[in-house]
């Protein structure tokens, strides 16, 4: 027996391939949507991985530092470091901001990390080029996605920093590339007030009898100094000793400090399940709509192709072709369309993924799932045409 579907497709391949390509672009969009979602999860995971932390110590009862603002005194780190099971602990600050660079605004996440010693949590774990920050001030390490180059000067708030090293895949959970500064510099950028605010604050202190008691000017000076510098961090990143259990250490920190502590698993839940959940639903909606549109296209095309062959189908039935053979022919055509569509979609998605501003991660497993979904949708969409074909009366071939 010959393949009726195959022959029919070969006979009208131009129309068939064009339809397949159209469907394929739609499938490409669908795969990209899934890739955007996977990219978001991967960004979140990269953020957690690259922080190098096992535990995140944040302001009590907040979901900080990535999902909610959190502020801790940097001194919190010291008693934690002394606790059993804790290997290292370091304060970090995170601040997403826009930086003007060569006439363009670049959105970055400024990370303040302990740079005095290599290996402290919060530092970029590896560099692609250049060196780490060695001076306490005015040096920065940037993710390549910022577009900054080694030697570039970038201005963050009031100060200018020189890029001394480049790293990669260091992004915020929103996909913004990171710019690493020393903790001191970053604290200044984040917490320091601008000149006007300082002037006003000083005036306020001066006019307050409590902060500026008559005859004791040293008090006001001390107050001003305390107000001007900041010793806050957004979180303390903790690594636990290889022998220690992260959950136990987290419980111990919670018991002794008035802070909230998250383990890696909890942090993942906050970032992926809570922060990304809404985007995931959004993308899920898109996937559903795209699936319906694809199904409608396949159903329409296969149905029109079948209706165009009603007479031939009547003749085939009259000369003894089984219903099963005719249904099989239509099903195979739908699946063939799906196959072309999937191939085109996969190629298209792979081709245009790098042009997306955010990370698009095309997982092979998603492709496999997509393939089966496309096939299932095509099979489903062919049912309408199969129904129409099976209803054809062989007597129609004889006519009136």
């Amino acid at each position, binding site marked *: 027996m010959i393949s009726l579907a195959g*022959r029919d497709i070969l006979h009208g391949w131009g129309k068939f391939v064009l339809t397949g390509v159209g469907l394929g672009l739609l499938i490409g969009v669908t795969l990209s949507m899934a890739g955007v979602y996977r990219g978001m999860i991967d960004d979140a995971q990269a953020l957690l991985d690259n922080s190098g932390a096992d535990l995140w110590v944040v302001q009590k009862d907040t979901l900080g530092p990535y999902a909610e603002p959190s502020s801790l005194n940097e001194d919190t780190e010291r008693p934690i470091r002394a606790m059993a099971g804790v290997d290292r602990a370091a304060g970090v600050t995170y601040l997403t901001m826009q930086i003007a660079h060569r006439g363009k605004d670049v959105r970055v996440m400024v990370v303040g990390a302990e740079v005095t010693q290599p290996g402290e949590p919060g530092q970029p774990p590896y560099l692609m080029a250049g060196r780490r920050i060695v001076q306490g001030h005015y040096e920065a390490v940037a993710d390549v996605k910022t577009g900054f180059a080694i030697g570039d000067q970038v201005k963050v708030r009031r100060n200018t920093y020189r890029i001394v090293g480049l790293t990669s895949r260091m992004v915020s959970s929103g996909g913004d590339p990171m710019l690493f500064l020393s903790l001191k510099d970053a604290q200044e950028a984040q917490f320091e007030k601008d000149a006007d605010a300082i002037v006003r604050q000083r005036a306020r202190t001066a006019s307050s009898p409590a902060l500026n008691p008559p005859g004791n000017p040293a008090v006001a000076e001390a107050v001003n100094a305390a107000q001007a510098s900041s010793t806050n961090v957004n979180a303390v990143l903790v690594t636990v000793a290889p022998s220690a259990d992260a959950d136990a250490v987290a419980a111990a920190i919670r018991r002794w400090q008035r802070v909230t502590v998250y383990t890696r698993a909890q942090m993942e839940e906050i970032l992926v399940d809570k922060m990304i959940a809404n985007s995931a639903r959004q993308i899920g909606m898109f996937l559903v709509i795209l699936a319906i549109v694809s199904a409608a296209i396949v159903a329409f095309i296969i149905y029109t192709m079948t209706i165009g062959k009603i007479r*031939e189908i009547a003749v*085939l039935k009259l*000369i003894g072709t*089984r219903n099963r053979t005719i249904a099989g022919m239509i099903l195979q055509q739908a699946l063939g369309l799906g196959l072309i569509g999937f191939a085109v979609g996969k190629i298209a998605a792979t081709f245009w993924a790098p042009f997306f501003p955010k990370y698009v991660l095309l997982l092979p497993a998603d492709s496999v799932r997509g393939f089966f979904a496309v096939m299932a949708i095509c099979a489903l969409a062919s049912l309408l045409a199969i129904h129409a074909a099976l209803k054809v009366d*062989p007597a129609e071939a*004889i*006519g*009136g």
Partner: protein
Amino acid sequence: MAEGIRIENLVKTYGQGDTAVHALRGVNMSVAKGEVVGLIGPSGSGKSTLLKCLGAVIEPTSGRMTIGDRVIYDDGWKVGDLRALRRDLIGFIFQAPYLIPFLDVTDNVALLPMLAGKPNAEARKEARDLLEALDVAHRAAAMPSQLSGGEQQRVAIARALVNRPPVILADEPTAPLDSVRALAVVDLLNTMARQFETAIIVVTHDEKIIPTFRRLYNIRDGVTVEEGPAGSLGSDGAGKS
């Protein structure tokens, strides 16, 4: 000659009660193997209905129908698989050739033996032999759309013959053809009927070919009247040309 197809007292009523249409009211007909008979009659007389009953695509209301010595219908179908019956025992030729546009000439013909389960190579060999016999072998690899009307009709005849059915039903096979071609088709049908021992029933309005039938059935108001050689037709003049 051996009997090809025989129908006795075949009745077909469409619908029921007040709206019932008595399309066939007791048709009798017998065609031997190797014989070609004409079936004529005015519009609405029941020709297509009879053809559909013979072709096992609609069920008669009552009567009896045999092909060779097989009882096909006796107040009810006597075969389980009508599809296989059509495939193996009946060949169809239509007014238009109705070739499958996406199969080449050979496969249009070979499709039937393939449907009957023959291997492709064997089916194609049978098809090519028949195309040879019908003088269209040189177009064996062409697509139907590339053939002339006459060639298409010959391929359609090859398709009807390929499973060597004892009966072939032809529905206005010459309608679109000019008289030379129409007569050639009738000749061909006569040759094929003898060569393949097939009973051929040709439904036609075609004045050009009616005189060529040695035997004619004239159907009126659902009843057949057998008429002798076409030349001796009665006063309705259907056979005069």
